[in-house]
């Protein structure tokens, strides 16, 4: 049973990261601007983030789906989800208005807020669920 739960969670989380990274990766300029909009990093770091963030998401998603380097993918997934949630909390504390940019520039992009924190929290919960069920096997 726990194996089934683990596989479903892995596929779900993997697809989310693949979609997020893929959509951002198609527009690296927009991705860098989205990182910069959080006003947490200097321009050069936002630029590097715009290049590397989508790639890390794609690699994490692919590793989760295939099970290749799964433990490493869980570490990255934990780090990414925590980083995203921290960024959104920081935006809310500073009272900024910006789109979350979670899936690049889709037609409907939610504002960075409670909904985004709930989404990042779900990613974190799935990560911990996979880590827990995988280690128990």
């Amino acid at each position, binding site marked *: 049973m726990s194996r089934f739960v683990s596989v479903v969670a892995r596929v779900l989380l993997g697809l989310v990261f693949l979609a997020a990274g893929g959509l951002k990766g198609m527009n690296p300029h927009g991705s*860098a601007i989205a990182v910069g909009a959080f006003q947490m990093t200097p321009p050069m770091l936002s630029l590097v983030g715009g290049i590397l963030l989508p790639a890390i998401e794609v690699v994490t998603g692919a590793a989760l789906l295939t099970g290749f380097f799964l433990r490493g993918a869980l570490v990255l997934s934990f780090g990414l989800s925590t980083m995203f949630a921290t960024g959104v909390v920081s935006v809310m504390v500073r009272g*900024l208005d910006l789109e979350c940019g979670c899936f690049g520039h889709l037609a409907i992009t939610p504002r960075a807020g409670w909904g985004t924190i709930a989404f990042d929290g779900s990613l974190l919960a799935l990560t911990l669920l996979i880590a827990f069920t995988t280690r128990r096997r």
Partner: protein
Amino acid sequence: MSLLRCSCFGWMKEAAALTGLAVALGIGADLVLPQGVLQQTAMVLRDLELQVPVHLWQPAQVAAAVESGEIVLLDARPPRDFQALRVSGSLHAPVADFEDMVEELAVEVAGQQVVVLLPSEAIDEARHLAQRVVTDLGAEAVGTLDGGIDALWETDVPREGKEAP
């Protein structure tokens, strides 16, 4: 304890390997993509440097700030909507005419705190215009309204126009 350390080491080693793969993939993909960031670094850095923080205002905050004269409201709706109902004392600069009104508006808003008013469905336009209010008009700070201008009619903000009560 040492077992835990060993186990953690394995997890971190895998994460480092995946990160290395991602760095190679990221740089490779960026070089291949026509709109890659590395091929236009100067332009992307300029865009990043021009980014302005846009604050999110709540309707009640705006109503209170209008009362105390802390902010300037920039209503960017089409003329028909503005004539029907508007906040008393708000400036009118329809999105379509913004370009032609830059000089005139700059006199009014330079150094001020500005909130851009548009309907909630035009949030992207409002954010874009808000950036320009700082970069082109010289406002000190800029914000948008949570829920758009319609949310403001729920407050007791002073209003005027054909449809004003």
